């Protein structure tokens, strides 16, 4: 586990060199970081190399929820759309699915057959765990150096293959009582997020696979996707 301060200490030289600030002596002469810190800095550098250019993003989404409510894991497919800086939409394909809308601090889940402002929609704005997760999900695709993403978060870089980064709510927080972690899997070359794994405290697990990333599409493509939602 790495606290945010040491993380930023480790990440600063990498970020500085990536952003052309390596000539700044104070940043370049930062104290040598541990192996774990260097790994985290590398993950952030890889992630930001893609995310920092994002004005909008559309990707195919496959969701798998493992829950004790169901005999078999629930599988669904859909589309993820992000529009900087604050809009994230996860919409299942077909009328049998649902849509998750994160617009700033507004969080709603509604059926695809219903408008987004239906009274039947689930509003999770006041739920700290939902807020924490929604904020992380939104910031994963937003441009930035990672400071906002890692705010109010513990981090862990799992061993093994793949470029993964695990985000966890603070120990002893209200969020931690409902949510264990959110893991990102990054594409080692491009830096896109290819998988998000959400581990809930009660045992449910949600695995979201992302593919076919299309970054900075023309506005009309995003608008045409959002139009049925009347956002």
């Amino acid at each position, binding site marked *: 586990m790495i606290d945010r301060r040491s993380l930023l200490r480790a990440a600063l030289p990498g970020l500085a060199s990536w952003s052309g600030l390596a000539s700044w002596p104070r940043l370049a002469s930062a104290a040598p970081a541990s192996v774990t810190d260097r790994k985290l800095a590398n993950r952030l550098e890889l992630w930001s190399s893609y995310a920092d250019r994002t004005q909008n993003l559309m990707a195919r989404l496959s969701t798998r929820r493992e829950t004790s409510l169901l005999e078999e894991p629930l599988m669904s497919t859909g589309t993820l759309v992000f529009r900087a800086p604050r809009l994230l939409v996860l919409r299942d394909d077909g009328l049998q699915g649902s849509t998750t809308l994160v617009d700033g601090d507004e969080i709603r889940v509604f059926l695809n057959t219903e408008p987004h402002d239906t009274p039947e929609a689930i509003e999770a704005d006041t739920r700290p765990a939902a807020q924490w997760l929604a904020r992380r999900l939104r910031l994963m695709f937003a441009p930035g150096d990672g400071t906002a993403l890692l705010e109010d978060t513990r981090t862990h870089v799992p061993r093994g293959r793949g470029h993964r980064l695990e985000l966890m709510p603070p120990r002893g*927080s*209200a*969020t931690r009582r409902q949510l264990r972690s959110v893991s990102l899997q990054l594409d080692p070359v491009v830096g896109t997020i290819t998988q998000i794994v*959400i581990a809930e405290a*009660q045992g449910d697990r949600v695995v979201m696979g992302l593919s076919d990333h299309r970054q900075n599409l023309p506005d009309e493509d995003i608008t045409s996707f959002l139009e049925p939602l009347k956002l």
Partner: protein
Amino acid sequence: MVTAWLVAVVILLARVMGDPGVEVSGDTQALLPPEHRAVEGEPLLLLTIRPEAQEEAEGGVDLLLAAASAVGEQLGERRVPLGPPAAELTGWLDAHALYLLPVEAHEALAERLSRASMSAAVDALRARLSSPIYGLSGEEPRRDPLRLQQLSRQYAGRLTHLGNGEDMPAELTPTGDLLALDGQALLIELRSDEPPAALLEEVRAVLPSDAVEAALIGPGPRREQVAADISARWPRLTTLVVAGLVVVLSLALRAVRPVVAILLAVGSVVLGVVVLSPPPGPHDVAMLVLLAGFGCEGALHLTRISPRGWPAAAALGGALLPLWVSPYPAWRAWSLGWLVGIVAVVVLLRGLVPGLLSLARYTTAPARTGVRLQPLRPLAVVLAVSALAAGAWSLPQLPFLALDRTPRTGADEGPQQLVRDAFFDPRLVVRATSEGDTPAAALERAAEHARQLAALVPDDATRVDSPGRLVLPAAELRSRQRSLQALEIDDRMTALHELLATRGFRPDAFGEFLRGATDLEDLPTPKAALEGPLGPWIEGYLEDEGPALATRVHLRPRIDDPVPRLVNDEGDVIELRGPAVAARRDRLGFADGLGLYVMGQLWIGALAVWLGTRSLATALACACAALVAQTALLAAMLPLGLPLGAAMLPVVLLVGAAAVVAGGRACQSVRNDERLHATGVLLSGLGQAAAGLALFASRDPLWEQLGLMVAVGAVIASGAGLFVAPGLMRLFGGGGRGAARAPVRPEPEPEPEPDTAHLSTEPLSPEAPTATSEDDAP
């Protein structure tokens, strides 16, 4: 008289210097009728995490729960659950979910339990499960797969015990405390008559971590805090008052010995009131300061109104008498206390001061030349009309200080504000009492009341917190049982079981719901609740006197709304009691009350002036001047940002009385064609203003507001008395005309006359003719 006074002062000083000395009350509920006062023995304990003591990667929930556990172990039965223990409540709700829906909802329930609706609900559940947020959204599909809680909200209001309100960002802990959803605060209810400071010390001693901070909230801790504040501010306030009066008296009298004598007389009266009356609270301290400031009026030889000088004392002493009919206990007591205080001050000033001055071999200084007032009727009319119009315009726009609120400093407000933001506003909690022969009967009665009180949600109230919401009266229970049996719940639950399995769900995961819905023989009766796991929590609602159960209603913060009136099935009114109820009633009737008290004060003042002068025009002019001063004060309060409320009523009346006295003096000066000495204006107007400024500089939020009102009001009252009353008197046909007019005499300017206009140097005696009355002789 001097000897008697000395003995009395020695006794009073011995009482003050000895044990226990002067006690201070700190009671901020003194204006509330007793039946509406908040209970002092039920403080709330707020546990918070010190931000600076918390590591970045650590939340506070574990620390707070550990601290709550330690506090619970230490306090034992003194800690009572604020809400039902979470697990026991969940079990009860799951077992009786359908019974808690009213019969009116059963048609909608039947529709929701139709095969098509259940199929749609299960499909919707499956669809929502694909959202990554769903598991954290607060939805509980295991307990409510068909979202029947929506029906509860629609037909029965929310099951509005604490901890499940959507408008409150908090949740119940397993032991029934409230935990803020952000994990930074935890609220515990206590029952204890111990001094709050000792209780807090005991709590702090067992806190397991320095990172956890404890604070007590409620009227009891508030009383203790205010008492400590008063004790701390007392020396400063006393110094300010004495300094202010010394300055004013010195300016007016220009001699040390009379200043000392007057201060000794006034101070001994204030000392006597402090010792002989109940321990003073924040309102009483302000009144004591005003008594000192307004009491200096008695130092004047009041011959400007009448030869004997009693009308001014009567107008001033009787100023608060109208408050005798008010609903404010503190002001009812002060309506007579003020009269007694003023009488005592006047008696001492007119009886003791001459004696003291005689002992000190002080001889009266010659009078300085005064001014001859020239009443201007147009000016008086313009001023009066302007003030009345401005006051009438300002009155509805003035901010209102509610009866249940006392201004407090920002530092005191911190924990209270946190409780309001993270949990609920304790100031808005009012109570309804349900009585019965046994606790079970009281709970059944509370169930009926709670059902009717639930109609207040959401328009008038945010929550009806009662165990009665979880049980049903016998008749209602039978009715719902028959209605539910007609719905053939068993068959529908069997269908739901099959449906869930068909859609890929594990029906066992919904076992709590399916079992609770199917078992219609497990009834939510009061007896079952009291004997079940919710019993200890319910007992916390039982009141000491007889088997009675309290329902806590969380009103909306709408001071301008009338108190909701509810009638039960027997036609009896369900009485709501609490500070917020008293405040709403007071707000609704405040304007009427203010008018009544002001009219009473004007009548008393005018009567005193008429009896003293036998001039109806003078009496009317003084009353009008007083009304002008009061309305001008209201107009001045608007730009000054001062609120109006019950706490300010005495100031309004005293300003009126001051204007009556100033007006009477000015009118008599005109009627008798005498010069008006500046000494009188200085001593009365500035003495009052000095008391107000001392309060204003006291750094107490309530006293600051009152002090500013008094200071401004005193200046306005002097102005109204000097410039409005004589002009109006002329307008009403008095002064300078007819029999009332004193014969014109030559100007006495070249020869100084004895200054009996500003200071009494003679012993009080009804028969003793005053020098001025002799001067008044043709």
